[in-house]
């Protein structure tokens, strides 16, 4: 099935990211065996595609994103961006991180798990990448302001980030990722910690931003509704070993961009039917296809 972003545009179906038989095995510690976080994952991500990965906790979504971002080297298979083998992170892939509040548990020291830099204000955080890349001050501020405008934070550019609400912090994270003008945007449960209202607003905002910027997006969530609403392609993942079990091409996003009114779409009969189908898959009521 073709991506529906822009009909007749040949570039729309160009593959930007290609995963072939990717596997990741984390070596086990004393007393626990190896963890197969990903096994035999194949995925061809096309230009302007909005891929949403859905699955229960621990099914390898973050690991998959980390592989795409170049933070983890897969133990099997290969990953290429526009034909070129991935070797570490690069500014062609912008990342918006999981928004987890409170102390992290994966290292000895108690620390806040956040990705913004609290010593910089909103504008400086957004311009940070360009500054490191050596872009001149006037240009980097202009680009950063444009992106802050895009996410609706124009009036907050001088605010310290640690005083912003969770939703606003994630918008800074989005603006920051967009500022380096990446080909691909990788988002790991960016809305997971937000309240239901802010979350719906953010879904619409992200869809609009995606539509305006023509990025290819890989978006992780564990909310079925969010996944169905936003995805051009939905991939459903299963744990032990982490793998893609189902794929769907979806068009609910298009109805939203054409006509607005997200609530109405989410309460439509076809939406609810799809939701129940996906839910029953995740709850294991159907045999996996793969």
């Amino acid at each position, binding site marked *: 099935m073709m991506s529906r972003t822009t009909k007749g545009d040949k570039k729309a179906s160009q593959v930007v990211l290609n995963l072939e038989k990717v596997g990741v095995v984390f070596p086990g510690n004393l007393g626990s065996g190896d963890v197969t976080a990903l096994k035999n994952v194949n995925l061809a991500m096309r230009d302007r595609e909005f891929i949403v990965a859905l699955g229960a906790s621990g099914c390898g979504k973050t690991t998959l994103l980390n592989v795409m971002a170049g933070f983890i080297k897969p133990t099997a298979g290969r990953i290429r961006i526009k034909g070129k083998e991935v070797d570490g992170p690069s500014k062609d892939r912008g990342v918006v991180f999981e928004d987890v509040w409170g102390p992290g548990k994966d290292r000895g020291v*108690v620390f806040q798990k956040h990705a913004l*830099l*609290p010593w910089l204000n909103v504008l400086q955080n957004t311009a940070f990448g360009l500054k490191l890349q050596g872009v001149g001050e006037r240009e980097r501020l202009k680009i950063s302001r444009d992106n802050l405008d895009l996410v609706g934070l124009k009036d907050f550019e001088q605010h310290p980030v640690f005083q912003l609400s969770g939703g606003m912090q994630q918008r800074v994270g989005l603006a920051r990722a967009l500022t380096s003008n990446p080909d691909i945007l990788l988002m790991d449960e960016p809305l997971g910690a937000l309240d239901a209202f802010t979350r719906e607003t953010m879904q619409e905002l992200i869809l609009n931003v995606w539509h305006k910027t023509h990025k290819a997006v890989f978006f992780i969530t564990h909310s079925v509704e969010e996944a169905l609403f936003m995805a051009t392609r939905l991939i459903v993942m299963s744990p032990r070993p982490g793998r893609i079990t189902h794929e769907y091409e979806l068009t609910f996003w298009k109805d939203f961009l054409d006509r607005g009114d997200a609530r109405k779409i989410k309460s439509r009969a076809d939406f609810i039917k799809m939701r129940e189908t996906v839910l029953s898959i995740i709850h294991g009521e159907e045999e996996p296809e793969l």
Partner: protein
Amino acid sequence: MNTRQKPATNFLRNLQIWWFAFLGKRIRSGDKKAAVIDSYGAPGRGKSGLISVITVSIILLLWWLSTQQEWVPPLFLPSPYIVWQKFLLISCAPTYWQEFQNFLGLTSSTPTECIGFNDATLWQHTIASLKRVFTAFVIAVIFGVPIGISMGMSRIPRGVFDPPIEFYRPIPPLAYLPLTIIWFGIGDLAKVILIFLACFAPLALNARAGVRSVSIEQIHAAYSMGASPTQVIWHVVLKGALPEILTGMRVAIAFGWTTLVAAEMVAAKAGIGVMVLNAARYLATDIVFLGIIVIGLIAYSFDLVMRWVERTFVPWKGKAA
């Protein structure tokens, strides 16, 4: 390239932005009395300044009362008044005051002679000690912070420095005082080295913890925006470690003062520590008290300054971002 062109202006701008962040927080927290109610059960919320003032007043009052009523012999506990008199005597404040008035031409009396205690005035003692403690502290910062950062950053320095630091850290300075004297003599060098050792461990260990407290997300984000490893170290790790480095400085200077008396035990001409030790030899409890109060006040003032620095320069400390 661009980032390093005008470090001075960048620094000033950052300073200004921090300053405004600080001001904004102060202003906002001023009209947010309800926050105390909102955060029911939050440990340690609310203001404690007034309580501290009351505590200090009660201690002073009890001190005064117990000497006034002679619950304790004056040799054990000199009265506040006597300590104050001793302060005037060995600080030579009246003499300085006379000289000052002569200088202004208000009077033309010959100032009373004043020799302080142990051939030095209280100021000379204090300055001698301040010099030792701060020299040792500054040297410890210069070495301890980079070493701590390198320990947090890579396994080789961690492997090299961890055993010696963890080994000497819990040893009381009095235990290795004889060694520092045998090795470095009875001059100021040995004293500074003793205080340096006390400051060094907390500085290094906190800098190390600071580096480790930088979230992997911040580092990954920087790489995804095109940062080089060196840029990540300078622009993410070091700044992220700043709050803990400042904490390390607070702890270190306190350790420095703790070690002062031990450092001045042998062959010091001037210094608060030696003043206290000599006074104890003559059972001059009032001077012992005076010395303790001076050390305490200096250490406390420095701590207040460091707390101010923390609020101003790392206002995000302890906040989720």
